[in-house]
């Protein structure tokens, strides 16, 4: 384990990237992990269907916070369709650590929140077109 707490993870826990809030975000979503009560919110501003700005906020363990930093960094400039393709492997590759099944939920919480946000955005924008 203690590889699980690689320096990068601890650094991102203390100094997260893209932490904060956006005004009038186009996409936003929030969810919590019922086991630990950790909360992550992600907010995105779009420009021509691409991620222009992204921020996250919330409280959580080193794993979920590092994962949120890496995920938000990863999606900058990407198209919505590309975001839909992101999966577990992308997150674990970015974290570069071994994670057991219990803590996997912490690592994947930000991705779950991002997907919730995308699908509710796509759902509402389809409705608007109709």
């Amino acid at each position, binding site marked *: 384990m203690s590889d699980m707490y690689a320096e990068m993870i601890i650094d991102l826990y203390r100094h997260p990237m893209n932490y904060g809030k956006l005004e009038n975000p186009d996409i936003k979503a929030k969810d919590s992990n019922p086991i630990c009560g950790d909360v992550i919110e992600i907010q995105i501003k779009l420009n021509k269907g691409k991620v222009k700005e992204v921020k996250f906020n919330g409280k959580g*363990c*080193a794993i979920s916070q590092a994962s949120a930093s890496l995920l938000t960094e990863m999606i900058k400039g990407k198209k919505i369709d590309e975001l839909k393709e992101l999966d577990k492997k992308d997150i674990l590759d970015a974290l570069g650590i071994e994670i057991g099944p219990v803590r996997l939920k*912490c690592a994947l919480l930000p991705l779950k929140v991002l997907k919730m946000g995308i699908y509710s955005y796509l759902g509402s924008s389809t409705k608007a077109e109709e």
Partner: protein
Amino acid sequence: MIDVEKIRQDFPIFEQRFKGKPLIYLDNAATSQRPNQVVDAMNKYYQVYNATIHRCVYKLGEEATNAYEEAREKVAKFINANPEEIIFVRNATEAINLVAYSWGRSNIREGDKILLTLMEHHSNIVPWQLLAKEKKAHLEFVDIDDEGLLKIDDFEKFMNEEIKFMGLVHASNVLGTINPVKEMVNYAHKNGALVLVDAAQSVPHMPVDVHEIGCDFLAFSGHKMLGPTGIGVLYGKRELLEKMNPFLGGGDMIREVHLREASWDDLPWKFEAGTSNVAGAIGLGAAVDYLNKIGMKNVREHEKELTKYALDKIVEIKGIRIYGPKDINVRGGVISFNLGDIHPHDLASILDDEGIAIRAGHHCAQPLMERLGVNGTARASFYIYNTEGEVDSLVNSLEKARKVFKL
């Protein structure tokens, strides 16, 4: 004093190695381990006299019924109650729900007040929320002070406001606080309120006498006291249980059933619908035997010394914050803490790597977490098989966690 090394030999789980290290199990407030004696007693039922109870004419059924009712007698004696006042349920949560449904739904009316405390487990909050919502009753909460003790003046103030019922935890699963239940029950009765004591964290760890406490109901679980999962106990005063409606309806709890009506069996069977957890009750009986052999005073003494030893050592760790009372006389074997800015789950992961099992999170006590101003805590909790050497390992691993997180 108790012979910990001898006790440990009865628990095969400690022979295992985790990641090459011996298991240091410090999550006893969640569930205890089980000795051979308990597992053997349950196996014997399944392998030698397995049958359903209370309705068999044949020999096996008689043996099973005797063993089940003998277990009830053991449990009754353990907390100084009468056997007909002991109802077997699944766990402490079900015991509390039984009271909220059977007593609460007939006795709580619109505008009534139910008093709880800020240090209750969710199991002694949510059933009362459901009841209060249904009946338009009000919930009130006794606050805690900075030490983690109940504010007794707060309690007395509420009691003077016509409280009908109180749910009160005997020992907190987070703070370790042992509440003065006897005095509080006495005060509540003088003010006309009934009291249910949640004894999930006290019955396994110290002598508990329902007559001395004087409570109207008392709930606890088998799996926190060396017994199996799926068996718990509700104690209730006979005159109250007799007046209460059944909780679950079905087989075994009836006297006569007709198409449109039925009458109920005597206590305690009125509250035990369906096929009972026979093996569970027998296992719990064996757990009671095991604890009696050690002696509950000795159990408490051992945990007291170990907790004092642990508190003295843990308090020395730089950046540690310990929750709950410092006075060991009002504290059970539970130590909740936070270390620097390390999230409790990260702490638990680092300790897991050392073979140490501790709990991390809100411990099913979110209102208490809010009151303490934290998202969660790490928690070590002790039992009869824990040693000072294990506490030393805990302390060393916490120091290691400080290094990993560069505190």
